[in-house]
């Protein structure tokens, strides 16, 4: 039974100092926490199957020598994504201790 006919993704309220960011915006060495994955479709589905689900901490490890793709660490493994795909993953910055990944 569906009551919500609004198919637009709900706007995410973010505190003013930290603008809405995607995984592609994070520099190597930083860490973010997944907020959502944009748009329906197989790309987003696959990203979710790979573990990019809300509240998942993701660490940016390093860029490829040619600048793209980038290696991320999440859920105990290392995953490379291209910029265009990483830009679908909305994150909020995680300034906390990287070892404290429990939510």
């Amino acid at each position, binding site marked *: 039974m569906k009551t919500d006919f609004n198919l637009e993704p709900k706007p995410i309220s973010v505190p003013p100092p930290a603008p809405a960011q995607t995984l592609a915006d994070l520099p190597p060495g930083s860490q973010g926490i997944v907020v959502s994955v944009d748009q329906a479709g197989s790309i987003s*589905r696959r990203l979710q*199957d790979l573990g990019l689900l*809300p509240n998942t901490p993701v660490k940016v490890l390093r860029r*490829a020598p040619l*600048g793209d793709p980038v290696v991320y660490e999440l859920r105990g493994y290392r995953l490379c994504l291209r910029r265009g795909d990483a830009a679908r993953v909305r994150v909020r910055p995680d300034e906390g201790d990287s070892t404290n990944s429990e939510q």
Partner: protein
Amino acid sequence: MSEAVTHSSAVPLRLGLIGSPNAGKTTIFNALTGLRARVGNFPGVTVEKREGSVHLDGRSMVAIDLPGTYSLDPISPDEAVVTQVLQGEMADVPAPDALVVVADACSLERSLLLIGQVLRRSEPTCLVLTMVDELKARGGRIDLARLADALGIPVVGVVGHRGLGLDRLRALLGRPEGWERPPVQPPVEAVERAAWAESIVEHVIHERPEHHRISEQIDRVVLHPVLGMLLFATVMITFFQLIFAWATPAMDLIDEGIAWAAAYTRGVLPVGLLADFVADGLIAGVGAVLIFLPQIVLLFSLLYLLEDVGYMARAAFVVDRAMGRVGLEGRSFVALLSSYACAVPGIMATRTIPSPRDRLVTILVAPLMTCSARLPVYALLIGAFVPATKVLGPIGLQGLVLLALYLLAPLIAMLVAGVLKRSILQSDGLPFTLELPSYRLPTLQLWLSQVWKSASAFLRRAGTIILVASIVLWALLTFPRATPPPDMSPTQAASYALEHSVAGQAGKAIEPLIAPLGFDWKIGVGLVASLAAREIIVSTLAQMYASADEDTSLRSAIRADTDPETGRRVFTPATVAALLIFYVFALQCTSTLAAMARETNSWRWPIFAFSYMLILAYGMGFLTYRFVSALGGGA
């Protein structure tokens, strides 16, 4: 009850191995089945199917290695195969009776998302955690007993490539009837399932695995902007050298062996059709298959070594951006580079590409790369018609022409790949994803068994097609058997027989078609004969011109040849240029077509590749002929 008994005694129980790509599923499958696995394709799709019998606890079972999947809710063809097999919807592939989930111990957190989906199914299920040694090395600790409790299914930890824990696994797999069943089903919705996974992780993981410290340090060099590129170039040049040059001694040896066997047969058998068939048809056909073995064995030796160590993923990561420009990805690079030596191993190397469309595009453009079989053709034509003048110091004109032909190939291949990716093979809408495994010491046994499997698969699947095609071509070049006039020398008689064979007639028949490119019927016979392999045009021309050897005398013979009616030269500069360009593009290689048919599981794609390359060859050959003629090279 009686039904269950009948089932276990008559039809062997089927174990389905499920896991994400890189979970170590295939290693477990190989360890269980040894070398008894049958490799084929799932019906109707190009996804590889591996099945093998296993003897566990005195019982005979069948293990089936399902394609790697991240989810049971399919979005890719590979994943759809898994779901179809599980539902018993795939023709000729009965559904598994019990499921074995294989997961990497270090990324259990991620794998639980898939495990949660499998646990919702009704089949008895168990979990195999691989790479528990790496987990330990990275300081991680998982309580397997608690994990088994939390999931409600049996759990075994193993080190697949070293064979540790396999005895316990075998004992467990022997009795799926006794496996515990999960008391409650995990949630169906992804975010809820992630929360479920997290609760299990907190319950069973005592220490999360840290970064693999050695891998981190190696990556600092291997993925370094400058050092990483240098290493990549070094590895790829070595790779190329290995297939191009280091395979040559073994290939020469096979050539000599085949020549010896043919000569020996001729010595033993009476002169006549049988001796011709055995020596030139059968033995030459076997040689046409065996000649690829050194390159294939070397290619896969290095490929699997780099894969097992963990470098292949890094190489794909380093080069991905460059390949992304034409819509391909990092893993296509190795296959295309291998095709520079020979398209057959190159096409086989595309198996590492997970996206079916990217893989198909790579297979379709691989034969455009300048393979080593084009070299004899280039060498003959350039040697005969391009003056050996020095252009720049030691650099000669002949070398420059050869270099230009070599550089033309990847350019065209990239263009065609770009066109295919924008037209009939647009992206399948999946993101580029690549996991970087930790570096690992490979084991000799696993390495050798992988190489052996690839080589034997080539011999069985592509080899048979190549052998049959070689024999058919021999027949075309031999029949009908014309009796040469008695005063002819043996070389003239051979030329006469070739002219009157089916292939010779075909060469004459296509003369009007190839005349716009400046080719006469003798070149036509060469084109027909070299459908088997490009370099055969050299030996065919030698036979046509009744030349004593394939080198000096053939060069002077084709230089001197004139049209008997017009008295003009046959090989004008325009004709030679058009012929060179024709061989840059045309897919004159039965073995490549056989490898394509084997890898794509259909004749549709080899026919497509042959057609588009023929159209390119003809069109570009025609333009070249016109262009050079306009410059005054038509006579």
